[in-house]
């Protein structure tokens, strides 16, 4: 047991940091740090910069064009990414779909889709949830019926994050109604330009457009876009969700948010002194910092065990997902709370990069203030998406505890 980074790992961290310092465009960095709206173009630009360096997919093995980095290197990369304020890459493409393709897709699919993800050419969104199928995902009803050389897809998906940007969607569809619901599900790759697809925005509680509903009306999908075997999609879906949940630990982002919270609490005044000197508030920061300290080690313990035992991640990622999502929420809540009355203004235009505050407002309303309340509202999603906290506890109960 050793909690120190080796000199090699420290050198690696310095190299990652130096790359970010040199290559992260200043406009993107400014947006991320101040919580401004990012455009798809920003993310694509950053993906291309990373890919030029060979870091387009740091979690992928080398044979698919990844870095082949170990979990510690990936952890360091993510910490530095979050700390400097580089945007998150598209997790749906890189961290969810890609592992499924690498493990279950045929070589033609791998050779076509994976490079296009790396280059940023294709933006993927996820087609899992349906209006009647949330936590009970296996009850999904969007149907895919074989018709000659294609499937005919009909139904509705919902909560599709950044579906408005997507070139492709990976979908769970029903190809059979025989047997248990899980046995009739297939994993289908669908071109968003296909005739019959309609994307409708859903406004979230922070007023932003992040999620969508997607309608499929007799959409033709070539048979070769089926991943793996027909009716085996549930296996692939669970595999994907396990990967999704690991990423949800979000240690790097939480560390960054904690640092930010302390900066805000040091700057906001309360009773004539920095809010950070108010022990009642400071203790709340201390508590969440302790949770994060523990989770960082728990996360590394899980990932290290996985690496050394050469096995795939198991239900223990549910522990990471539950804690990680709660910590993100608490940090966002404390950042908002730190603002006090300045948490109230709702200025949609303030999330644009070129917004300038009126001098009267700027006298008390700090540049970091505009996104914080919205982020608090928005992040209530984290204990709901990717398997709600209650579903995670069911998984722990059944798969770890055997209850």
């Amino acid at each position, binding site marked *: *047991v*050793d*909690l*120190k*980074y*080796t000199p090699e*790992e420290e050198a690696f961290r310095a190299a990652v940091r130096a790359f970010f310092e040199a290559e992260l465009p200043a406009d993107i960095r400014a947006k991320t740090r101040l919580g401004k709206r990012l455009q798809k173009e920003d993310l694509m630009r950053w993906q291309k910069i990373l890919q030029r360096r060979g870091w387009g997919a740091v979690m992928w093995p080398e044979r698919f064009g990844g870095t082949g980095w170990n979990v*510690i290197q990936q952890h360091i990369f993510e910490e530095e990414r979050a700390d400097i304020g580089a945007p998150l890459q598209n997790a749906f493409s890189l961290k969810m779909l890609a592992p499924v393709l690498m493990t279950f897709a045929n070589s033609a699919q791998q050779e076509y889709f994976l490079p296009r993800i790396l280059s940023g050419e294709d933006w993927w969104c996820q087609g899992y949830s349906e209006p009647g199928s949330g936590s009970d995902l296996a009850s999904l009803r969007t149907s895919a019926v074989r018709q000659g050389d294609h499937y005919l897809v009909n139904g509705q998906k919902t909560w599709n994050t950044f579906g408005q940007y997507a070139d492709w969607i990976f979908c769970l569809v029903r190809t059979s109604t025989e047997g248990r619901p899980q046995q009739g599900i297939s994993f289908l790759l669908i071109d968003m330009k296909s005739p019959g697809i309609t994307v409708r925005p859903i406004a979230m509680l922070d007023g932003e457009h992040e999620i969508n509903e997607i309608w499929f009306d007799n959409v033709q999908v070539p048979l070769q876009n089926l991943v793996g075997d027909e009716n085996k999609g549930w296996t692939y879906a669970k595999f994907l969700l396990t990967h999704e949940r690991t990423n949800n630990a979000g240690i790097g982002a939480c560390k960054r948010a904690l640092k930010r919270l*302390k900066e805000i609490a040091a700057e906001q005044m309360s009773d004539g002194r920095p809010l*950070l*000197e108010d*022990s009642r508030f*400071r*203790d709340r*920061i*201390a*508590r969440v*910092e*302790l*949770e994060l*300290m*523990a*989770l*960082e*080690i*728990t996360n*590394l*313990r899980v990932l*290290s*065990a996985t690496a*050394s035992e050469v096995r795939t991640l198991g239900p223990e990622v549910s*522990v990471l997902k*539950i*804690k990680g999502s709660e910590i993100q929420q608490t940090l966002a809540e404390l950042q908002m709370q730190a603002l006090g009355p300045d948490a109230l203004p709702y200025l949609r235009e303030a999330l644009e990069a070129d917004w300038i505050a009126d001098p009267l407002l700027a006298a008390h309303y700090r540049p970091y203030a505009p996104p914080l309340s919205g982020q608090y509202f928005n992040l209530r999603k984290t204990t709901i998406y990717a398997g709600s906290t*209650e579903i*995670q*506890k*069911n998984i*722990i*109960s059944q798969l*770890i*505890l*055997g*209850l």
Partner: protein
Amino acid sequence: MDFTYSSEQIALQETLQRFIERDYGFERRRELARSDLGFSAEAWAQYAELGLLSLPFPEEFGGLGGNAVDLMLVMQWVGRGLLLEPFLSTVVMGGGLIRDAGSPSLKGELLPRIGAGEIKLALACYEAEGRYDLSQVACAAAPSGSGWRLTGVKTVVLDAPSADYFLVSARAGVGVGVGAGVGAGAHDARGISLFLVDRAAPGVTLLTYPTQSGGRAADLRLEDVTVEANSLIGAPGQGLALVERAVDRGIAALCAEAVGIMAALNEATLNYLKTRKQFGVPIGKFQALQHRMADMLIAAEQARSMAIIAAVHGDSDDPLERRRAVSGAKAYIGQAARSVGQEAVQLHGAMGVVDDVIVSHYFKRLTMIDLSLGNADFHLARFSDMLV
């Protein structure tokens, strides 16, 4: 970054597991807790044979040169087995302090004897109304001949009844160039010196009592106790840092002990959920209980991570790094242990509140661990204050 254990560390754990299964069952432990001594002299001799009592000492003093992670593993099994022997006081805190600050001759004299199981130590560092403040020292040390004369009272000294020597913090007298001493204010961090006091010295009296978790402790009264000059450990007036370091190690050890108990409690509770039937089914089929069991597992895993932080950083030479790690861990684990302990009792129903089921003993030990060497509130405040 490495979270694997060496083959020696794995063997160490297996040894302890076998020892507990064979020689330290629950019934045996209950008998020992009720005995006059309060622990097993035979077990203590076995620890010496196994090398546990010399584990953290340098090889030149007959030790095994073990590190903080080794101690963490031992303490996890101390927790699982609810072991009553004064390992924490003698080896981790007392022995560790002698190793850090004792003169070469003192180390040569004491460490091999500790390792052989011949002598035991107790750290006498708390006083009335000081709560967990180690700088609250009214106990006075006046120069006397070439040595010192100690007067004062130390409270709730863990493992004192069986100790052969006490490590006592006291304010050294003014006018002898040792910083602020008697009369400098009982909270002054300066002027505190540390003395080794023989239990048999004239003027030493003990008021002994059992603790809530089956151990032994005492109030220690020192009335004009004369000690030699070489009983002063470390430099005069510099004793507080030594005591703090010993207590930091003790905190890391208690964190590990709590982790061992939480793992054992979770196993016991899970087993109960699977076997206890009500309404015709094992009660573990009820989601209300499943989710609470899941919360207990999460709390225990997070606590385990904090105990690793406490062990590794709690051994640092940098007092601020140590304090942040051990106070953070003690605050976190105090809270986690409270929650796991209370839930384990609740999920066991009435079986959780009786004396002849081990659950209540684990629960009581967890509770007393929180209250030892600074509780969760105390350590949260220390951790929190470091944020400013």
